[in-house]
């Protein structure tokens, strides 16, 4: 077993996902199949190989820091499920 049902529950919490009991079983099973296959990577000796995080090497792209118009607050809030005045509205997070 690469990954247990308990691990799947833990990872789901990290990822802010929630699964039913049936789904937990299915995902445990599928993730095991996938990760077992991916174990072939461990056959490769990668000692001293630099990891690539990008395909094309890029250095920083600098530009002058100029003030320019950006998205209006009203526009930015248009797609929000809930908002009040100029804020996104979420369920209460502080008790009291």
């Amino acid at each position, binding site marked *: 077993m690469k*990954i247990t049902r308990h*691990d*799947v529950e833990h*990872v*789901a919490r*990290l*990822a*802010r*996902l*929630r*699964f039913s009991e049936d789904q937990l079983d299915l*995902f445990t099973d*599928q*993730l095991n*199949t*996938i*990760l077992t*296959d*991916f174990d*072939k*990577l*461990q056959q*490769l000796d*990668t000692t001293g*190989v*630099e*990891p*690539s*995080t*990008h*395909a*094309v090497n*890029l250095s*920083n*792209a600098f*530009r002058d820091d100029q003030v320019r118009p950006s*998205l209006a607050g009203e*526009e*930015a809030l*248009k*797609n*929000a*499920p*809930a908002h009040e005045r100029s804020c*996104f509205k*979420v*369920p*209460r*997070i502080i008790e009291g």
Partner: protein
Amino acid sequence: MTKALYQMTIHELHELLKKKAVSALEITQAVYQRIDAVEPRVHAYITLTREAALKQAAAADEKTKQGTIPPLTGIPLAIKDLLCTAGIRTTCGSKILEQFIPPYDATVVRRLKEQHAVLVGKTNMDEFAMGSSTETSCFGPTANPWDLERVPGGSSGGSAAAVAADECIAALGTDTGGSIRQPAACCGIVGMKPTYGRVSRFGLIAFASSLDQIGPMTKDVTDTALLMNYISGHDPRDSTAVNREVPDYTRALIPEAKGLRLGVPREYFGASGIDPEVEKAVWEALRILERQGATLTEITLPHTEYAVAAYYLIAPAEASSNLARYDGVKYGYRHPGETDLRDMYEITRAEGFGAEVKRRIMLGTYALSAGYYDAYYRKASQVRTLIRQDFEEAFKACDLIVTPTAPTPPFRLGEKLNNPLQMYLSDIFTIPANLAGLPGISIPCGLSSRGLPIGLQIIGNLFEEEKIIHGAYCLEQNSDWHLTKPSLA
């Protein structure tokens, strides 16, 4: 038999528009008539923008009256539904973005509008571009116009099917692990993934940011060159869009292949899971190129067999981070009525995402989590370096690498849906180019005995799209697969 307007290419229609033999409005109306006739069977689109398109066509006709027009003016194009379109909903094939209306255009969309192209609609896709069959869309699957029981490939399956079924003149797709090239192969059209950094990703809804790239999906190679001319180039809004001159890609449309050195990687042929009919069609195409003056060299890309595993750790890792933004707060779906923030997050995401997206978020979160980072994410990133080095070495001996695009012709709807690993292997030949950032094209190279399209892939070195277009055009001009159309009977 003369071609109907909707069957024509960009360059054919441009000639007619220039001569004022036809109007953009007539072309656009013809395309919508075609959509009305076949869309109920194909389901290539999520959203059609008929009213706006007719206005854009009228505006294009005004431009034509004023003088000479550039090649995209008045041409009806379709846009994959993960490229933002101001005021037009952009869903990414997901319930979580079902009602999302972007406040701005993606840079590529803006560029097409500046050319007075006509935007027909937003095409169907696998949810968040995660899939190889367009079956994970929350709006239901798209059918392959060559055989309605089969998948159009994915994730840009809607764009590919729309082009193949003549429901648009050309389209844009995106390619993270093959999502332009594999559906292009499945639907018998041309699809190109440019070099990472050639086209701005601003306004592309991110899946895996180090791999995603936008590209053309067209009826022939000339149209791909034309679209590349207008979508490529630097963009201050995407710091990875390289500041490098954009050549006129149509100058690479050369019908003979003299001097082109083609590399044939031994790992891509005779591999398990590859259909012999696919292999045969690719070899026949290679012989055509050889007769046109190309030389063939056997090359080796020794780490090919590790590419799928590396990709399906790296891409989900990046996705798990990119998709953290869908939390029911700023935009998108929110589970109603929840009074606890954490419950709201978890139920919103549980209801808003489909199974494949969740699977990849889980895989990616696991690969990045404490204790597993080195064994999975870091290891995969090291293998990515080895794959890049394979290509660097190979391009010392050849100009272009020629392979099959997909291991099999399009499979049946539902065939791989419950077997994620089998589905992932559909991308076996396209993934390496994404990991290495290289440009690649798929062009039609034959039909299987069942009459299903087969695609040939040409991979080039970084920023060498011109050589790819040259090779692809030569093959196209010396064969007629691009003229073979689905009957949609």
